[in-house]
């Protein structure tokens, strides 16, 4: 590699130091360098939302960031929200409401919704539709996702 960047970043609570090609997209860094493949790549033009991660708590498109841009920052990916044996209430709600079919878009919805639900603990359907309108899903028609969010809101309160 000719150009390199020494990146320090905390992901899901773990600190990493990696030497990267500076033009590496954050999505590729997470998936390939850190082997956190839960963050999915659907378009690489910032539209579909599948690659959404939390950067210092805010949902952002990891396909629109270069890895060096998160130097010294804190990231949470879907793997940091819960585990198979200890799922986040939102993840459980998704399962109960059948809010995922192929599951490809799901990580992006989860990372978008977790901070949003913390700030909007009692959302209406209209508010939920607005909140997820930046995430595309081709399988569910969004109906069960909305049901899951309502269910999660109940669980979380």
């Amino acid at each position, binding site marked *: 590699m000719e150009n390199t960047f020494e990146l320090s970043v905390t992901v899901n609570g773990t600190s990493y130091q990696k030497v990267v090609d500076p033009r590496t997209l954050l999505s590729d860094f997470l998936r390939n360098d850190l082997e956190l493949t839960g963050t999915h790549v659907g378009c690489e033009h910032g539209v579909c939302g599948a690659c959404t991660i939390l950067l210092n708590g805010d949902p952002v498109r990891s396909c629109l960031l270069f890895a060096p841009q998160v130097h010294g920052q804190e990231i949470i990916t*879907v793997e940091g929200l819960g585990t198979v044996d200890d799922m986040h209430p939102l993840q459980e709600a998704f399962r109960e409401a059948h809010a995922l079919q192929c599951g490809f878009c799901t990580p992006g919805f989860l990372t978008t919704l977790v901070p949003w639900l913390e700030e909007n603990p009692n959302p209406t359907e209209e508010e939920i539709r607005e909140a997820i309108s930046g995430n595309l899903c081709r399988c569910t028609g969004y109906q069960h996702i909305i049901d899951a969010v309502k269910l999660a809101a109940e669980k979380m309160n």
Partner: protein
Amino acid sequence: MTYKVIGKRVKRVEDPRLLTGGALFVGDVNLPNMLHAAFFRSDYAHAKIKSIDTSRAKEIPGVVGVYTAEDMGEAWEPGPPLVSPPPTLEGVVFNSRRQVPLVKDKVKHAGEIIAVVVAESRYIAEDAVEEIWVDFEPLPAVTDLEKCLEQGHTLVHDDLDTNLAAHLVQKKGDYEEAKKGADLILKRKFKLDRGAAAALENRGIVVDWDQKNQHLMVWDATQSPIPIRNGMAARLGLRTHQVRVVAPFVGGGFGPKIMMFYAEEMVLPWLTMKLNRPVKWIEDRKENFYATTQEREQVQEVEMALTKEGKILGIKQKIIHDTGAFNPYGLTTPLNTQSHSMGAYDVQNYNSELFVVFTNKTIVTPVRGAGRPQGIYIVERMLDIASKELKLDPREIRRLNFIPKDAFPYNHEIIDQAFVELVLDSGNYLPAYEKALEKIEYDKFIKEEQPRLRAEGKYVGIGVVPFIETTGVGPYEGARVAVEPSGKISAATGVGTQGQSHMTSFAQIIAEELGVEVEDVSLVSGDTAEIHWGTGTFASRGAVVAGNAVLAAASDVRIKVLKLASKILETPEDELELEGGLVKVADIPDKSISLGELAVLANPFRGAVEPGTEPGLESTKYFGPAYGATAFGVHGMILEVDPATMMIKIHKYITVEDCGTMLNPLVVEGQIHGGVSMGIGNCYYEKLHYDDNGQLLNASLADYLIPTSAEMPPIEVYHENTPAPNNKLGTKGVGEAGAIPVPAAFAQALENALLEFDLEITETPLSPNRLYELLHKQED
């Protein structure tokens, strides 16, 4: 039948891994020593290749090789024909032309691959693609379906003297004779345009040739791993046991991932065997728009003959269907159109002439609906137009024409996509239709709501449309079910999963038969090492064909369990029950044996067995229906259109669906919701815009508009159940149902909202711009 597990809203067993980022999709496969491929694709839709210069690309550090058609030598050959024309139909003209791995002389659609770069990383590979120089001689592009058959028109394929890909005629009864008794003969021309499946996961393939073991491992985001395995082995001169294909979790299929031997699927295996290293290619979204198959483009001239009461005497139709640059998938899509052009109606006379044409556009293969939406669209439009001309209530004209419930099985006599006569196996249309009208409060809307809203200056309309869906076609599928010594069940089937919940709904069937928990059934689908025979996931057939194979295998295991348990427990079989993973003697709770213990006993390590005994508690069974199962339903919507902005809002959306026995209502509802969202996309938001040069103008998700949650209405789903008579589960498919009637219902609702404009909609998809044009054309 009363079931304990089948038909219940069981939570999915596949979800925990998917929800926590722990499920494997093809893009997640990372192997040591792996190389990455990137493709140089033609920007031109139609062009001769004069020369290719890859020299600068090859010099980039990290590039392992840059290859063209010439480098492939004898390994270069077009893809195999996947679906032949129906042998059961006479007089079919079919000119087979299939896609190639790397273009040799002439590019036939934008996105075709001319060269492949293999490098240490995707980034380097894409850098190298930029350094490839191709000298093109552009040619006029063939894009107009009607003009392309004219004498002297530019040809897509120089070795043919025409752009005709296929021609056939299907007849039922005698339309010309029936027409003589008509009070009204309606003629209309319809234009239907292309849409993409646009699954969230693009395509991808990872191949790994192990030279020492002489074995090829393939991960492919495909809907049909077994045929891919068979075809790859054949192309590479390998035995089938030397190739293993795994379709891992696939992020949505919707049809295009059943297309097989895409160029990339032909190039990558060649590369890995040549380079002796694993090679990975994951499609990006732009490539997906050019290089993944699409569907829906047709021009139709339709004639309908009716009595003044509204009874359909016959339908005559000319279809021009665009197959794009190649036609590997045969006539499946347009045959489906023909099968659905008579809708849910008792049409005794039908005459349909089909022309399939080559154009310089992306290849057409089925996308959810697969030609069915086009058939339902034209028949429902014609009935709407007829009801206006005859001054009949659009509901009455449907009621009058429905196939009556005692007329099933109803033979339409024309040949369908499975090459057999189109037989609608069962149906009961009227109650479903009445239920839809009741749920959407049709009468109340027309009499009270609509006038009230109109007085407020709002344009709100209603559309209710019935439809049928052919599902559950053959040829066959298989399933293997086995009890493990742990007492848990392992199972396998060849229908891969792209979100259809097979791991759960098929587990429910097994749980029902063997008295185990759904979570104790581990079902693998999409791995050719687990089951050797099958075709794939398509045409709304998983539940019917694979589901019934699962049932047959599980039932056979149950028989073996009972036989062995009866011997061990010294009790007649009819006094035994399977529950909680145990075989119990009815009324003697202490006398039981677990399935796991039985499995161990069924597979002795030493000793002798009785002649004819099969070891273990395992069974592999196949199911192949003589003809498919016909699902049906009704969709209704109330929508509002803003005459200034042309933006629409759907206020209410209801569906009544009848897919026979449901394996899992949660799954059925999810499939309907998803289908409706694609259907709504096909009405007003999604259209692939090709220009006269064959250029796709909106190849990004920013310009090709997939409905978001903001465009989608809440959807109410109601169920009817007319069991399929020809399979034990009584089930029918439902995977595509949601998408099929939507454009027809939308057109009806939109015309109804804009009644005073006397709009007649004969094209789909529309858009705000197009609606504006249509309304203002009226003024001119």
